[in-house]
């Protein structure tokens, strides 16, 4: 059935976008770092998974378990050793954003350069659980369903952690108002570092899951950075539910356009949706009304 032929793969893709956007929400919305190397970390995780799978015959699901803490640690070090020092140096919010963009731009080229040296520019993919199954009358590979299931699992866990625990509420408080957060005894610098690290863990998880069913190459990180940014802004910066809903929406719309109109128009569809949402609701789907 055509509806499910669009809806199911759309949700798979959208689930990836939602997961990636959730990570960017933590990095940009909470730690206030515009991380331009975001997509490159995703691709690096994809290459890591590929190497473990084809080199050591390790399951991508094991790679998932390894990638999240490893990426979180690397991102935490990046934040503590580099970004936080620059933030302290910057005079105001504007200077801080420019500095973080410059630094992460540099990190982008480092990660991309290493990947180009190691893997060259060609596309890669591997075959893991590429067994076709029929769900609701539409056929797709098991690996996509596995990816969707893990994205849903991780996304739900993060959502619950952010909304139902005191630490999660504190993280959202830093996103809403870092100055007031200090006044309730929150160590804003420490929590921002934690959010940045965890956001890095999420994007690595996205990279592992994406690599199960998409082909990838060393220079495609920017596409993921851009889409994550589109989803975050569309959902309302700093809004967890907004990132989840906007991610799923984007996945379904892109799949519908690719399927019904032309695959070459997916990027155009991305931006048409983006602009439409922002024209109707300038602060995003779940953003607070402009005051």
């Amino acid at each position, binding site marked *: 059935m055509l509806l499910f032929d669009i809806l199911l793969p759309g949700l798979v893709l959208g689930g990836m976008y939602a997961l990636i956007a959730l990570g960017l929400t933590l990095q940009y919305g909470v730690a206030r770092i515009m991380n331009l190397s975001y997509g490159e970390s995703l691709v690096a995780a994809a290459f890591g998974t590929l190497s473990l799978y084809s080199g050591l015959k390790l399951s991508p699901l094991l790679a998932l378990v390894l990638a999240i803490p490893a990426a979180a640690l690397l991102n935490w070090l990046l934040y503590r050793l580099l970004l936080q020092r620059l933030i302290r140096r910057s005079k105001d919010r504007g200077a801080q954003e420019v500095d973080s963009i410059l630094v992460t731009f540099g990190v982008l080229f480092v990660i991309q350069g290493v990947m180009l040296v190691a893997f060259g520019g060609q596309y890669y993919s591997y075959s893991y659980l590429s067994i076709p199954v029929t769900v609701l009358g539409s056929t797709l590979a098991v690996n996509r369903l596995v990816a969707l299931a893990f994205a849903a699992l991780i996304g739900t866990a993060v959502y619950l952690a952010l909304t139902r625990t005191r630490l999660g*509420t504190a993280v959202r408080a830093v996103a*809403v*108002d870092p100055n007031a957060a*200090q*006044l*309730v005894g929150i160590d804003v610098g420490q929590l921002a570092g934690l959010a940045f690290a965890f956001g890095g863990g999420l994007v690595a998880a996205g990279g592992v899951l994406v690599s199960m069913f998409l082909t990838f190459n060393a220079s495609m990180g920017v596409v993921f950075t851009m889409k994550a940014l589109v989803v975050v802004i569309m959902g309302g910066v700093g809004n967890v539910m907004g990132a989840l809903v906007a991610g799923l929406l984007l996945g379904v719309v892109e799949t519908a356009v690719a399927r019904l109109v032309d695959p070459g128009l997916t990027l155009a569809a991305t931006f048409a949706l983006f602009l439409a949402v922002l024209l109707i609701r300038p602060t995003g789907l779940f953003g607070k009304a402009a005051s």
Partner: protein
Amino acid sequence: MLEISGLSHAYGKHQALADVTLNVAPREIIAILGANGAGKSTLLKAIAGLIRPRAGAVIRFDGSDIAQLLPHQIVERGIALVPEGRGVFGDLTVAENLQLGAYPARARDGEDARLAHVLALFPRLTERMGQAVRTMSGGEQQMVAIGRALMSRPQLLMLDEPSLGLSPLLSREVFRALKTIRGDGVGILMVEQNARASLDIADRVYLIEQGRNAGDGAASEMKSNADIQRAYLGQSREPATSKSK
């Protein structure tokens, strides 16, 4: 409990505080009076650690110097600030704001009892627990702000213009709550535009002019002081005063 001396701060070249001295004893209510721009908010921010005081300042709380601590460490010592403009988390609910008030380690024990206490103090918050704070009236937001500060189990509660923008009725409710809070053993240091109402509940008063101490004394004496009446209680235009000229 709080002893401050030699406190100075400058914003660039502008000297906002110069050599300020101030003391608060346990369970005392202290009101700070001063014109707009006198440096009252700067003083509270310096105590809360939001701005760094100039070297040489002494801010002792319960016997230890807190002048170089960060804001979250100062909350942990037992000083809570309800800032100008309240500083509540507008996107979060009342319940979440109050829960965050108990974020410091010192506040974890007896959190439920303190929440019940805050809701007894401001009963109208009880049915609003699930509401986003930004959708509430100014007075209700002020109650959330004070309640959140109390959730941190402070020994000293600082308030920056708590009645600003509130209706007379809500202002009275807030001042009544402050008296109850002091009754529970919390010291209060407040900056207030409404000098009359603050003199009514305060034990002592400090006057600040252009960033400097300009006098202090018991609130009851201040109320009958002619200069204070003219400057802060708005009595200079009363017929009796103009006739005597």
